[in-house]
């Protein structure tokens, strides 16, 4: 055991930092823009293109699809540096982290040819069509129905809470293809174009900054059967695999640590008196960010060793939510009544900390998994 960085990771990080220093000079305003806002997504089209030119958008992909053979540690460094600057890749981090790899693993040659190059070039936005009004935590109960009709599927149903639905080019869509099958079977993945006739996208006014939430209504949307990813009715396995490593693909702790830094800086610049209890709140938040960092690193270490996914990923996820919450408390203590100003870092961080416990697998579900898989407790 040792906690030093390999030389290649250190030099990778400094190269990356130099690039980001040029590209995102000083305090990049987008860092405080909300991940998930249309503004952030639009910026990502420019920024991800520049990253792609440097070979840093999809460094972990195979060379065939534009990768450079980066190790999981280098990928972690990349994620950390970007999240600590507000994630300028916007929604495209999903593309490179799991949508692209999922297409690589299960896609036909035509699908790879069609979908991977735009992702690798940083010029495409995907959304994730999983949740439905009646299927949230219990995702496997999803009901959006796809019925084969010649060389197409005819899709009917609705999706909800779809981030970026209003600006996405494609949707990684979960549908039910066999309503008679046991619930984890009978689900398929469709790669749907967002300009398909019959698809209506309705924005949902959200309360996490300008995060663009939408609802998708599908009425007789025709999706070519050639756009099905993986075997029919076995989409659950496809998506589980895609997301298995994703739990630490979004190093929220790095963004929280950045917000903490910035808010402290803000207080200093204004010459605010920082009381002892506030200093302690800041220290506590920092410690939680650091704990989340180590718990994420443990998962990356497992990936670097090619070990199968483990419950350590759930442990890391829980720790990241805790770090987000303590950071929100610390920012509120630092900013006092500034929290009433919309867009202040304490206001935004509080909202984001709420999202952290719900989006991409709720806190309670993660705790259930830690209890059962990590502690080995019996199922109720």
């Amino acid at each position: 055991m040792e906690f030093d960085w390999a030389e290649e990771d250190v030099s990778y990080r400094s190269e990356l930092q130099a690039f980001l220093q040029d590209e995102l000079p000083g305090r990049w305003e987008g860092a405080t823009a909300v991940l998930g806002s249309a503004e952030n997504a639009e910026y990502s089209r420019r920024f991800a293109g520049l990253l792609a030119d440097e070979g840093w958008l999809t460094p972990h992909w195979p060379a065939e699809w534009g990768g450079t053979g980066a190790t999981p540690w280098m990928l972690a460094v990349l994620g950390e540096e970007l999240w600590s600057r507000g994630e300028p890749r916007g929604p495209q981090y999903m593309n490179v982290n799991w949508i692209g790899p999922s297409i690589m693993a299960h896609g036909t040659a035509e699908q790879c040819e069609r979908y991977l190059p735009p992702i690798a070039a940083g010029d495409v936005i995907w959304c994730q069509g999983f949740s439905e009004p009646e299927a949230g935590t219990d995702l496997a109960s999803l009901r959006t129905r796809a019925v084969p009709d010649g060389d197409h599927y005819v899709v009917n149903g609705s999706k909800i809470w779809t981030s970026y639905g209003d600006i996405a080019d494609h949707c990684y869509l979960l549908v039910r293809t066999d309503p008679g099958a046991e619930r984890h079977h009978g689900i398929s993945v469709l790669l749907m174009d967002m300009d398909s006739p019959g698809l209506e996208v309705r924005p949902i006014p959200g309360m996490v900054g300008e995060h663009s939430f939408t609802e998708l209504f599908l009425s007789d949307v025709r999706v070519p059967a050639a756009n099905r990813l993986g075997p029919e009715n076995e989409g659950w396995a496809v998506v589980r695999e895609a997301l298995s490593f994703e739990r630490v693909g979004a190093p929220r702790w790095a963004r929280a640590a950045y917000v903490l830094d910035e808010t402290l800086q803000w207080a200093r610049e204004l010459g605010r008196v920082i009381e002892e209890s506030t200093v302690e709140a800041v220290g506590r938040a920092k410690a939680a960010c650091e704990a989340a960092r180590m718990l994420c690193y443990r998962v990356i270490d497992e990936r670097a060793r090619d070990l199968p996914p483990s419950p350590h990923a759930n442990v890391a996820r829980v720790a990241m939510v805790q770090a987000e919450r303590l950071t929100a408390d610390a920012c509120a203590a630092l900013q006092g009544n500034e929290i009433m100003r919309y867009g202040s870092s304490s206001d935004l961080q509080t909202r984001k900390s709420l999202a952290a416990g719900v989006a991409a697998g709720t806190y309670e579900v993660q705790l259930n998994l830690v209890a059962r898989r990590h502690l080995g407790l019996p199922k109720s």
Partner: protein
Amino acid sequence: MDFALNSDQQAVLEAVGTLLSRHAGPARLQQLGGDEPDYDHDLEKRLLEAGFLDLATTRSTCRLDAALVLEAVSGALGSCAAGWRLLVAPTLDTDLPGPVALVPDGRRGPVRFAADADAIVVIGSPVRLVRPDRSIARVRSRLGWPVGEVRELPAGGDLDGVDPAEVRTWARTALAVEMVGAMQLALDMTVRHVSDRRQFDRAIGSFQAVQHGLAECSVAVEGARWLALEAAFTGSAAAAAASLTHAVDASRLVFGRVHQYHGAMGFTREYDLHLATMRLLALRSEAEALGSPAAACAAEHWTI
């Protein structure tokens, strides 16, 4: 000791409840701008005309009934300065013209009601009641209150004979009562949601994790509520500090949990939860602005 409402109190609460059900509530707040609402002059006028804002008029009147009304107004998300009027104004021994804001001396930045206030109570030594000479700018705030930007305030307006400590005490009690009203609303909405919402073929409220989480919240809010009512009854500084300390702690628990158990539903502005919860952040910041309530609570009991 008697924890039951007497018949007068019952009558007052019934009457104010009727008024609030018609002229306040989440739908009314949405109409006023939702999380960025206007000041509800109409509601304030109706409450005034019906006598609900003048239940306590002098320093010596018991303010328990006023606190009960405030709890109801807060639970109905009233967008007016009912807390300052009901509980703080009697201490000032002066007529208040209309909407009022309250700031500790020297405090700058966003303050609830400041842009709409005819008068601002400045807690310093002496306590002052100033009429803002320039119009105070509105702050873009999305915490469910009308907020104004306090910069320099005019001099004068000294309220001789008013004890700043007493004003602070009543401001604490008012904030505690307001927090309790908003927390109870958020909890009620959540209990309803987790009872109705089904996942895995059962109500999510049947999961013990959710039950324990909400049960803890409920105990915290109950504690804060009875402390705040006791503080309103006694007017004691120690009770006020204890109630606000407990309310602030309860609000941390409630804020996180009720959102958590709502899942994504709590994130849409089309649903009312955020109107109750985000308000807590503003109330908490005003609670801290009066000086740490927990430190005050300790100081009221011991010399440390």
